[in-house]
């Protein structure tokens, strides 16, 4: 069983990003991490393979040179091999462009059962790439999976987020399954994992290797400006005994805010 995980790196989620001159200063980001949803996908995929007793996890990343560090982290967690898609033409992709490039890479890898991206990247918060890939590759997709419980007879049984609970669906493979927050905290790489990752195969492909036309990658969604959101007005701290502040709060919510 081949599991392909499209994985992107994002700025550390605990930092404030810097915004200046109408753009995000990504060059000032010091720590990059695996996109949290992709990390959950890796964790669930590792567990699936352990349960099934066989399988291989292949990481595919579009990103700059420096993304290799993040790819190595995924290999250190236990993924088996990786493809780094690196080309100047990949620098300004919109989700359609990303999906096209990823789909081309996966077709070139050739053998795949599950394509398991995150449900969204927590950088631009788009949440489009996975479903678009499925369309381009003409395979079914399941959005916001909690986990893949089982793979058998050319099908996957997937537990999916649903209002007020979950659904369990059976999807024919190959398929795209987008991962939401999983039930298991993603593992930290062990020292042995980190050492081993250095020896795992990592292939770099550019647009020519993938046979994608650079002109087709022009973004249709253009970012014109980025700014900070308007600051919130300074709030009010209510002081006094609990019964007093509680009553005061109810009054303010009713009379000033008019929300209750």
């Amino acid at each position, binding site marked *: 069983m081949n599991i392909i995980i499209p994985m992107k790196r994002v700025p550390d989620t605990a930092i404030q990003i810097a915004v200046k001159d109408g753009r*995000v200063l990504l060059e000032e980001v010091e720590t990059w991490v695996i996109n949290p949803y992709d990390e959950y996908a890796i964790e669930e995929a590792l567990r699936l393979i352990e349960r099934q007793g066989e399988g291989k996890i292949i990481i595919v990343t579009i990103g700059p040179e420096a993304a290799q560090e993040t790819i190595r982290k995924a290999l250190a967690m236990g993924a088996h091999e990786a493809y780094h898609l690196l080309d100047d033409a990949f620098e300004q992709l919109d989700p*359609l462009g990303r999906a096209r490039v990823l789909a081309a890479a996966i077709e070139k890898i050739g053998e795949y059962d599950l394509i398991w991206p995150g449900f969204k990247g927590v950088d631009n918060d788009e949440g489009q790439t996975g479903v*678009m890939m499925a369309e381009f590759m003409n395979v079914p997709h399941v959005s916001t999976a909690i986990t893949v419980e089982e793979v058998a007879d050319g099908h996957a049984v997937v537990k999916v*987020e649903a209002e007020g609970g979950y659904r369990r*669906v059976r999807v024919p493979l190959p398929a795209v399954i987008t991962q939401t927050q999983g039930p298991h905290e993603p593992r930290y790489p062990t020292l042995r994992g980190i050492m081993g990752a250095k020896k795992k195969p990592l292939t770099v492909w550019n647009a020519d290797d993938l046979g994608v036309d650079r002109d087709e990658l022009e973004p249709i969604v253009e970012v014109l400006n980025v*700014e900070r*959101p308007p600051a919130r007005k300074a709030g*009010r701290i209510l002081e006094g005994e609990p*019964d007093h502040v509680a009553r005061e709060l109810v009054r303010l919510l009713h009379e000033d805010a008019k929300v209750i």
Partner: protein
Amino acid sequence: MADLALVVAEHQEGKPKKITYEMLTAARSVAEELDAEVGVLVMGHDLDADALAEDMGARGADVLFVADHPDLKEYAAEPYAEVIRQLIEEEEPVLVLFGMTPAGRDLAPCVAAKVEAGLASDITGLEVEEGELYIKRPIFSGQAIATVRITRPPALVTVRPNTWAAAPTEQDEAADVEEVDVDELPENGIEVLAVEAQESTRPELTEASIIVAGGRGLQGPENFHLIEELADLLGAAVGTTRAVVDAGWRPYEEQVGQTGKTVSPQLYIAIGISGAIQHVSGMRTSRYIVAINKDPEAPIFKLADYGIVGDLFKVVPELIQAIKEYREQEP
């Protein structure tokens, strides 16, 4: 002929959901400047087109497209996307609006890929200048707002709930009904084996006008009755933090934040929540924020419109009491 701004409706057994009305408000806010009519597409089975035409008309829709077919009874990406693909081909809308909801966020990228159109996700603003549409959307979990443009029509967007008002218009004319011919619909071979959903009497988290959220400060699942009682008193949804979900005290679907739900209610009451950046990113656009926390240095107070520094086990029961009293005074 006028252009078209098309709203892809969501409904429950023929009754439009709030997000549908909000999308109509959003579409209407730019329709005139785009020189566009407002259309709304309702997909389903056994729909009452006349009742819908009246309701949608009152909300400002000029045209109601109805796609009625047994295969459209329940939401599924492939058949729904195929209907929209056909309609986009025939009507060539300039703008297509979906809800940023479980169905909408699944459907929109599917359609975008089929018609190779640009899609802006989770939008919070629409403006037109000199006939050009400018779209605002939060990025980096709301740490920044991007203005984007989609360089060729149709522009596809998913609309963040609770951002536009669900207000009716002055208009009392029913929308013109156009039936959409539905031929063969594709399937995807996905089989639903089980649905385990608890019927909740509380509103859906992303749609709720009020959310009462409890964090690790509650000290255990047994104390969440305080949160639930306050929520029920206010007709609110219950939210929580990842720390609580990871501890197994509350289910993941209640999690608010970067890897949980993004919410934007009128009122968000954060109780025993520190206000970590990953939590705040999911709720910072709430209109009013109340924080109850015993630590005056908790970062959540930086965001709060009203803050109470104190022990939640003392404050929340008083708050429940105060609301009950106030309800009795003002029925």
